[in-house]
């Protein structure tokens, strides 16, 4: 029973980790909490539903949704956030802007699709596995495998490619990176593209796990994934994965041990405890204040 719940939590946690990566990527480079990420995730899930429904097949549908969601991420950056960076406005202005964007995207989704829950086709369907006493559904295996592959891919991009080097440089010092000939604005847009893609994949996976999607699905999932990102140390990729897994497991444990009304807040309770003990999260770098 407990082992089963832990496994369920791990599978769900991989989904959170994928959303959390989107927060981490953007925070690392802009020091900005991107509150629109939850709605981008919902957008990705809706698009996946629409494209898969068009009968091009599952994989082309997912790819189309990924590209479109990535483009949405870039559009958010170019239309709303880049002008703010150029004006060098106060950090809270960007934060409020992302809250506004989240509102726009969610409500446009409601206008387009209605606020009701819609069925999402299962992406992986090859029965269930039984390992000892644990029952594992194919969707859970698919979630874990796809998330792990994607994480490895992201780590590969960030640490072993030229654009990843540029991302890390821009993260450390945007001005110096600019002087070294890095087009920082392009790097930021690329980061938004990556975070949009990971959000879309997370949306499709979680959507197929619960088999429903709806425009407001990004709200709670976004907040929890955000808690996961901070928990692991926002801005660090391994931190996002560990944070996501912790949130997922604690959530499914809380649902069984304490009752389902506790599950939504578990993430925040753990978050506050961690932040009080380690203000920069589990894997976060310590910020140095220069006088």
């Amino acid at each position, binding site marked *: 029973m407990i082992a089963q719940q832990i496994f369920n939590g791990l599978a769900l946690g991989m989904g959170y980790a994928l959303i959390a990566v989107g927060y981490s990527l953007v925070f690392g480079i802009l020091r900005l909490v991107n509150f629109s990420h939850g709605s981008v995730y919902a957008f990705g899930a809706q698009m996946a539903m629409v494209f898969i429904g068009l009968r091009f097949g599952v994989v082309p549908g997912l790819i189309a949704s990924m590209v479109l969601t990535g483009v949405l991420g870039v559009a958010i950056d170019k239309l709303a956030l880049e002008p703010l960076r150029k004006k060098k406005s106060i950090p809270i202005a960007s934060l409020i802007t992302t809250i*506004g964007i989240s509102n726009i995207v969610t409500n446009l989704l409601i206008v387009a699709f209605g606020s009701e829950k819609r069925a999402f086709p299962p992406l992986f369907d090859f029965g269930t596995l039984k390992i000892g006493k644990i029952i594992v559904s194919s969707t859970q295996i698919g979630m874990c495998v796809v998330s792990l592959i994607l994480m490895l891919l992201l780590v590969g991009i960030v640490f072993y490619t030229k654009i990843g080097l540029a991302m890390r440089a821009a993260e450390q010092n945007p001005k110096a990176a600019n002087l070294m000939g890095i087009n920082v604005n392009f790097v930021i847009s690329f980061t938004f593209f990556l975070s949009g893609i990971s959000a879309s994949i997370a949306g499709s996976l979680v959507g197929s796990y619960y088999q429903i999607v709806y425009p407001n699905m990004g709200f709670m999932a976004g907040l929890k994934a955000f808690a996961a990102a901070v928990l692991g140390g926002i801005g660090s990729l391994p931190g996002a994965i560990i944070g996501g897994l912790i949130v997922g497991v604690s959530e499914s444990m809380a649902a069984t041990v304490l009752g389902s009304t506790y599950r939504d807040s578990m993430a925040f309770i753990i978050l506050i405890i961690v932040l009080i003990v380690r203000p920069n999260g589990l894997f976060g770098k310590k910020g140095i204040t220069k006088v």
Partner: protein
Amino acid sequence: MTNTRMEKHSFLYQFESFISKNQKLLLILLAAFLCLLPKGVNNQYFLTVIVKMAVYAMFGLGLNILTGYTGLVSLGHAGFVAIGAYTASLCAVKLGLSFFPSMLLGMVVAGLVGILLGLPTLRLTGTYLSIVTLGFGEIIKMIAMNWSPVTNGTLGVKNIPKPAVFGMKLTIANHGLYYLVMIILVVCTVFCLVLVKSKTGRALQAIKGDELASVMMGINVTYYKILAFVLSACICAAAGALYATLIGYVDPNTFNFDVSTLILSIVILGGMGTIRGMFLGAAILIALPEVSRFLMVYRFVLYGVILVVMMRFRPQGILGWKSQLPYKLSRQVMEWLKTAETEEAGDNG
């Protein structure tokens, strides 16, 4: 010299000096307008919207102390509102207390929670502090949802009685609730004005400007940050109690993250660190869903568009200008300066 003369001819300077010259007259006019408003428009729907605006302006005033003056961005102020609303309505429903003691109790509880939240968050700065307040808001919601014996769980508290004065029930229909909310709003506003001009207010603004420098100037940063949390929590709790009695029921979802962002949007839209801004911000954001009904489903999109456009073109808020008038020292300080001057003159002579 030319620079100051230019400023004196600016529209803003003239506007501000006009206001400060005719301050008393304008205040009397405003008071008369507010008193006569319900007599003039005897429309219950309209008055309800006005009262809602006033309550949200109070939320704004509360958060403004923390965010506008002390520079601590809170994303969980719905939590404090919920504490005030729940405490007051539970006292009224279950213990049969009348409105004012219940409201005060709500403020006290919120203040205590403010201390509890303030203490650990002192280790955190910037974004991390906002994140903890966000979590705080969610946890308060969870407590309201799960502490069923007291809060009645997800069903919430229903039939919250209207406040009564000398046995007379104050409702929107007999304009009593309107006057009550306006009086409490005025008290809150005066409190905030006095606070900003006081030593405490200057300390808070110094912390916003530069925390390290304020430590160097001998300001007890810990004390003032917690004080800001407590004052902010108390004002929001009082407004929460009013809100609960206005709408007549509270449930955990009345105070979700959307309310927190709405309060923050009021502060930002009106102008962070100004008191006038809170009224305009609340008026716009509360009126918006009402007046834009013809836009149907698109009106919720409009709310987001306003936030984005505002941040792009006027991030300091609509009324967020810096005062062009010279800073007025308080009477006490002026007298102290005068005596010091005469003493100095006496010493020299």
